[in-house]
């Protein structure tokens, strides 16, 4: 082999603490190295041209680049040598930036370590072989998990682009949080007026299959060919027959079912359609509250239903969906404020969450759009809003800013004034975060035109007094404590990861952060990708986001899927396992350990042998360490290659 070594300065990133010239010098003495040089920016246009020139000039047939992490630029350099006509697997990278220059200051030690890493790469490269990927078909269907505004946008964009879409929603209706909102900032337009038509589009789009009351049970396969099991929960109503007329709700005697859609402001009937614009508009029975299902008698709904849709014996079903890509859009949940004992821990009826307040503001909400105190139904006059409840608070392990609560609080003060002109709103805030277009102007309007009184400080405690609530806060700009007697207190509760997000991430094999938000592929450059090919993110499942950003991400994820599906076939990664038939004794240990089920047992001349399904193999290498014969080897990471690396590092 004629090996070329290129040692990158990365500006001063590497050259600052590594003598790159000396590394190149040392490389020249390694076996089969025909050429070695240092270079300013290997990844730049002239840097890549230099590599191609050297390949041609010195007849190189293998290349080592000593630079940054392969996660950054392996693909770049593989393409480079491909352009010069080499097989892209005759390439190795030595990471002398993250593993050397960024972590040590001692130039001499750094240089020595860099030389070692280059030597390891050379020894590996000497044993590399040309690998060739094969192609496989893509299933051009896409699954969107979560039917909030982000998921709706992604589904519609994909479907409009001609793709078949499967939308899976956990609740009985799509719409997510936005469906619960009254009006939306910064334009104060009616939420259901702008979301409603989109929801109807989902229901009517010929390319979209909607599974509501459903959750993903398992995900098998890989990009282009995912195999997803979806559990459709029992609704006790035959949705084929149900017309959504709602007659059942009128006569249901069980009225104590929890009303999740209305954020538990009040209760609802055991058989229920959460709101008039629900999509799908189908009734669902809450088995815990239904008298028939708990006590075996009643059946009022069944008698009334004009289409005989009630099915008390219904059970969960599991459907299987084959898709080529998945978009996760599972949104967020709200921080459980009962952790704050100082705010009553849920004991005070007139201390409500911001989302409960949205429902109270909404004309289709439990109070018919009348702002009243839950305790006595009276109209509140003094309303205190407390921001950052469950956000920016280390003591409850929520140090992050939820991003949108400053804005919706300003909105709610404006709507409060519209509802009750002689009311006074007070807002306790720490900072006002309003960096969007027209956002800061909006918060100013709340103060200047709607008279909301903003007080800079946190609230220490809320104490009931004579049927009202004493809110004890501070005005740090005045340098004093303040007390306000309120009729109603609204807590701007922060956003946290959606319930069950971690479990879903594990099924999708994507990473999530310490709070349960899904991790994007790169914080700047891959905002809607994940580290698992074919799985994308949209909306606040990745971190708190307002509606415009969630929608933008929905569209972005859809366009990523379109790009993926613009090809008819995908190239498989040739870094998969392969079996040396003459060594394999057919013990099937590999087949039983493979986490992806990629190994099949076959027969060869009457002997049992293992055989790898290349499209399923993820190249994890578990089989290779299991095989007692060393018969199954992971291509590009064979025992010989790895031992050569070890020997280079520890020659004695």
């Amino acid at each position, binding site marked *: 082999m004629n090996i070329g070594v290129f040692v990158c300065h990365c500006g001063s990133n590497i050259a600052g603490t590594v003598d790159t010239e000396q590394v190149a010098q040392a490389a020249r003495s390694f076996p089969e190295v025909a050429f070695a040089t240092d270079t300013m920016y290997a990844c730049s246009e002239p840097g890549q041209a230099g590599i191609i020139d050297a390949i041609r000039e010195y007849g190189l047939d293998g290349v080592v680049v000593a630079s940054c992490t392969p996660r950054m630029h392996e693909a770049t350099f593989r393409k480079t040598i491909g352009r010069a006509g080499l097989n892209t697997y005759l390439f190795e990278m030595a990471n002398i930036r993250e593993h050397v220059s960024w972590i040590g200051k001692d130039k001499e030690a750094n240089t020595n370590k860099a030389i070692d890493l280059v030597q390891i790469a050379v020894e590996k490269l000497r044993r590399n072989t040309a690998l060739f990927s094969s192609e496989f078909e893509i299933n051009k269907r896409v699954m969107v998990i979560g039917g909030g505004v982000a998921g709706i946008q992604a589904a519609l964009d994909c479907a409009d682009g001609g793709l078949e879409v499967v939308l899976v929603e956990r609740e009985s209706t799509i719409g997510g949080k936005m469906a619960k909102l009254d009006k939306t900032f910064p334009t104060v337009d009616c939420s259901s007026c702008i979301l409603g038509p989109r929801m109807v589009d989902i229901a009517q789009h010929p390319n979209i299959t909607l599974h509501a009351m459903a959750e993903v049970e398992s995900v098998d396969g890989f990009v282009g060919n995912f195999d997803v099991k979806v559990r459709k929960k029992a609704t006790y109503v035959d949705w084929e027959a149900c017309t959504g007329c709602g007659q059942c709700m009128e006569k249901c005697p069980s009225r104590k079912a929890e009303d999740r859609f209305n954020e538990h402001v009040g209760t609802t009937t055991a058989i229920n359609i959460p709101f008039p614009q629900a999509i799908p508009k189908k009734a669902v029975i809450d088995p815990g509250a239904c008298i028939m299902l708990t006590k075996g008698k009643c059946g009022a709904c069944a008698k009334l239903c004009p289409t005989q849709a009630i099915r008390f014996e219904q059970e969960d079903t599991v459907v299987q969906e084959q898709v080529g890509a998945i978009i996760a859009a599972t949104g967020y949940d709200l921080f459980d404020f009962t952790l704050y*004992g100082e705010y009553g821990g849920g004991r005070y009826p007139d201390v409500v969450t911001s989302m409960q307040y949205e429902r109270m503001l909404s004309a289709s909400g439990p109070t018919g759009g009348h702002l009243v105190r839950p305790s006595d139904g009276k109209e509140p006059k003094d309303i205190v809003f407390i921001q950052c409840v469950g956000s920016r608070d280390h003591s409850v392990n929520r140090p992050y800013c939820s991003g949108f609560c400053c804005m919706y609080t300003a909105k709610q003060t404006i709507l409060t004034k519209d509802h009750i002109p002689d009311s006074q709103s007070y807002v306790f805030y720490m900072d006002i975060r309003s960096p969007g277009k027209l956002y800061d102007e909006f918060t100013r309007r709340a103060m200047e035109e709607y008279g909301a009184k903003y007080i800079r400080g946190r609230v220490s*405690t809320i104490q009931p007094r004579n049927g009202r609530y004493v809110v004890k806060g501070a005005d740090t700009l005045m340098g004093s404590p303040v007390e306000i007697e309120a009729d109603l207190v609204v807590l701007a509760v922060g956003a946290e990861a959606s319930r069950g997000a971690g479990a879903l991430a594990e099924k999708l094999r994507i990473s999530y952060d310490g709070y349960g938000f899904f991790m994007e592929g790169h914080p700047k450059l891959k905002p809607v990708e994940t580290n698992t090919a074919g799985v994308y993110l949209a909306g606040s499942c990745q971190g708190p986001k307002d509606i415009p950003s969630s929608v933008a991400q929905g569209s972005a994820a859809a366009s990523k899927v379109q790009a993926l599906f613009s090809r008819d076939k995908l190239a498989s990664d040739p870094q998969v396992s392969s079996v040396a038939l003459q060594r394999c004794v057919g013990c099937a240990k590999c087949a039983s350990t493979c986490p992806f089920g990629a190994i099949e047992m076959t027969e060869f001349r009457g002997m049992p042998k293992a055989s790898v399904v290349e499209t399923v193999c993820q190249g994890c290498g578990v089989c290779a360490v299991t095989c007692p014969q060393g018969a199954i080897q992971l291509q590009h990471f064979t025992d010989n290659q790895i031992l050569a690396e070890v020997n280079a590092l520890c020659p004695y």
Partner: protein
Amino acid sequence: MSVTQYAYYPGCSGMGSSIEYDISTRALCKSLGVELLDIPDWNCCGSTPAHASDHLLSASLVARNLAIAESMDVAGIITPCPSCLKNLKTTSLRMQRKAFHDKVESIVERPVRADLPIKSVLQTVLEHCEPEAIASHVSRPLKGLKVVPYYGCIMNRPPDVMTFDDPENPTSLDRLMTALGAEVLPFPHKVDCCGASLGLVRRDLVTTLSGRILDTAAALGAHAIVAACPMCQMNLDMRQSQINRANHTRHHMPVFYYTQLAGLALGQSESCLCMDKLCVNPADTLRLVDCPAAEERTR
């Protein structure tokens, strides 16, 4: 009922200004099978004056008591006084750090392990005997008595140190009083500070802070306040006349130690419980408690 032995740290006020707390605590523990062995020759923990002057001095004063208790065969150290409790617990916690531990040992000149569990009497009693179990021993239920439970500011705060009950809405006294038959009113000032430590130097501050507590208790219709802290009790009881004068109020609000009311419900006599030591005369309030025995006496 099983008997468990504890090293008992009465605290200085138990020898004087809160003697009725000490006496009624001993009586309650005895009747519930919590055996108290006084820490022999215990010394003052230094209270706020010590920790406000120096943390090493404060810890050293505590550590001598810890060391003595460690030589006894006991399940832990318990004290009725939250201020002592906070000092004992804080010291024991800080002594987990070797550098500080060594410094303290060099000052007290004896080995201190600082590893015994330290608890309030309230916590011990409730861990030893569920309120429901205590209810079964009640011979004179506190029926008809409306009380507000006042825990004081440091019985369960800071939570990392005190590790007992909820720091914002503690319920242990509530549960105990309910089990004894009293009606417990929801009290917003359960853990608010009464200002007791400033009593001698800034009475003006104390009358403001304590006034609020009395005002709310009265507004809620409480017959009495139930206290668990000698400083709070003294402040609200002995100073009630001062508070009334300063705030132009006319409260007559008895302030009991919870141990006194528990003793009463368990059938101990008012004199054994030193009801006569309370400054705000509780006689009218006690008459509210349904009491066949009392009726007999008056006949």
